[in-house]
C-alpha cells in the first residue's frame, strides 16, 4: 500500500453528484474525495455505475447536478481547449484496453506522444521502449492488438496511459476476466506505477481481494449512494451488514439469496 497519500486538497472532489439514465438515478447526492498520491478504489456490485463515475470524472458524460473538480478545476465548466489540456494529464485504462486495432503495440504507445509532443522519432522510440519495459512487453512491440491476450492488451493500454506521465490514472475494472497470473501482474503493475510515477490512481472494480490489497482508500457504492468509505482495512473489516456481505462475498444477507416468492410449503402443496 502506498504511504504517500497526501492529506492536502484532494485531486478529485465530487460534491452532491446526481446522474440519471432515463428515470433511474445512478447517483443521487454522492460526495467523493480522491486524495493525491494514493490508490482509491471505487467498489460496488455490477450495474451500480462505477464505470459511469469514471466517465463523469473524464467528462465523457454530464451530470444532472453537482460538481466534479479535478485538480481544482470544475471539469464540466471547462472550455474544450481547457478540457483537452486537462485530459492530457489524465490517463484512463478501459476494460477492453481500447487499443487502436489498426496500429501495432509500439505505435499504440507512441500515439499520444506523436499527437501531443514534437519530440523527434528517436526520443519517441526511447520513451515507448521504456514504457513497454515497465509493463514487461518490450518484446511484444511488433504485435498487433488482435494477437494479444486480454491481460497483455491491458498492460499495453497502461503503457499508453502513462506515456505522457499523467497526474492520475483511472482504471476501469482492470481485473475482470483475468486469470490469476494476469491478475497478480496487474495488481503489481498498478502498485508499482503509482509509486514510481507518484501519481494518483482510481481503481473501479468489484474484485474485492485484489483491489483491497492495493487500495489506500475504499469507497463502496450501492443504489446511487456511498454506503461505506474509509481506509482499506477499515472498510474491509466493517460490521455494517451490507458492506460485510459485499466485502466478504457472503451468499445471503441484506442482498437476499432468494428472489422474493410466496411460502415454499404453500407453493409445493399448490394451495
Amino acid at each position, binding site marked *: 500500500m502506498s504511504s504517500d497519500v497526501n492529506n492536502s486538497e484532494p485531486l478529485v472532489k465530487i460534491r452532491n453528484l446526481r446522474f440519471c439514465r432515463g428515470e433511474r438515478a445512478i447517483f443521487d447526492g454522492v460526495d467523493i474525495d480522491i486524495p493525491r498520491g494514493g490508490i482509491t478504489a471505487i467498489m460496488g456490485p455490477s450495474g451500480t455505475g462505477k464505470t459511469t463515475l469514471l466517465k463523469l470524472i473524464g467528462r465523457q458524460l454530464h451530470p444532472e447536478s453537482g460538481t466534479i473538480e479535478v485538480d481544482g478545476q470544475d471539469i464540466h465548466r471547462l472550455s474544450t481547449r481547457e478540457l483537452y489540456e486537462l*485530459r492530457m494529464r489524465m490517463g484512463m485504462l478501459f476494460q*477492453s484496453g*481500447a487499443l487502436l486495432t489498426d496500429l501495432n503495440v509500439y505505435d499504440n504507445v507512441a500515439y*499520444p506522444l506523436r*499527437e*501531443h509532443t514534437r519530440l523527434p522519432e528517436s526520443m519517441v522510440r526511447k520513451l515507448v521502449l521504456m514504457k513497454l519495459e515497465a509493463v514487461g512487453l518490450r518484446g511484444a512491440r511488433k504485435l498487433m492488438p488482435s494477437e494479444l491476450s486480454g491481460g497483455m492488451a491491458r498492460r499495453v493500454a497502461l503503457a499508453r496511459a502513462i506515456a505522457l506521465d499523467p497526474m492520475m490514472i483511472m482504471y476501469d475494472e482492470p481485473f475482470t476476466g483475468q486469470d490469476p497470473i494476469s491478475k497478480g501482474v496487474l495488481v503489481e503493475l498498478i502498485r508499482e506505477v503509482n509509486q514510481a510515477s507518484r501519481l494518483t490512481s482510481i481503481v473501479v472494480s468489484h474484485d474485492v481481494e485484489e483491489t483491497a490489497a492495493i487500495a489506500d482508500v475504499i469507497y463502496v457504492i450501492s443504489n446511487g449512494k456511498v454506503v461505506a468509505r474509509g481506509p482499506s482495512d477499515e472498510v474491509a473489516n466493517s460490521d455494517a451488514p451490507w458492506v460485510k456481505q459485499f466485502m466478504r462475498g457472503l451468499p445471503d444477507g441484506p442482498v437476499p439469496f432468494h428472489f422474493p416468492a410466496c411460502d415454499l410449503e404453500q407453493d409445493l402443496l399448490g394451495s
Partner: protein
Amino acid sequence: MIDRLASLGRIGLGSLERLGRGHLLLFGIIGGLSDMVRRPRLLIAQTHSVGVLSILIITVSGLFVGMVLGLQGHYILSQFGAEETLGVMVAASLVRELGPVVTALLFAGRAGSALTAEIGLMKATEQLSGLEMMAVNPIKRVLTPRFAAGVISMPLLAAMFSAVGVIGGYFVGVGLLGVDDGAYWSQMQAKIDLREDVFNGIIKSLVFGVVCSWIALFQGYDATPTSEGVSRATTRTVVHSALAVLGLDFVLTALMFGED
C-alpha cells in the same frame, strides 16, 4: 388515440433529434478539415481504403453497364436508322446519370457500409472513447479524413465508371454490332458538352460523395455499441444512401437540365 398521437410525436421528435445530431457531426467533420491538411498521411491512407479499393467493382460494373447500353441503344436507334448516334447516347447516359448515380450506389454498398462498420466497431470497442480520453478529438482525427476521402474519391470513381462504360459501349456497338467506328467517337465529341454534361456530372458526384460519406459516418458514430446495433447501422447506411442518392439525383437533374 392519444397514445397513437403520442407515439407519432415521439417518432417525429426522435427523427428531428437524429437529424440535429447528424448536422452537428457534419459541422464537426467540416471543422476538422483545416486540421487534416497538416496531416496528409491520414487522408492518403483513407483515400486508398475508400477509393482505390473500390476501383475494381466500379470499373467492372461500368464495363457491363456500358455494354448493356450499347446493346439496348443499338436496338432502339437502329429502328430509326440512327445507329451512328450510339456513342452520344452511351456517353450522355453515363456522364449525366448512370456514372454518378450507379457509382454512388456501389460506393454506398462497398465503402459506405465498411465505414459504418469500422466506426461502429471503434465505438463498441471504446477506441473512440479512448481517443477522447487521450485528448484527441475522434471526429477530427478519425471521421474527417474518411469524409474527405469519400468526397474526393466519388467524382474520380464516377469518371472511371463513365470512361470504362464508354469503352464497353464501343466493344458492343462497334465491335459486335457494326456501328461505324468514326461515327461513334465523332458524334460523341460533337454532342457531349463539357459544361452542360461533364461538369454537371461532376457536381452530382461531389454532392453524392458528401451525402454518402456523411450518412455512413453518422450511422457508425451514432450506432448502438453492440454487434446488433452495428449491423443495423450498416443496413441503414446502404438504404438511406440509396434513397438519398436517387432522390437528390431527381432534384439535381431538374435543376441542371430542366427547361430554361
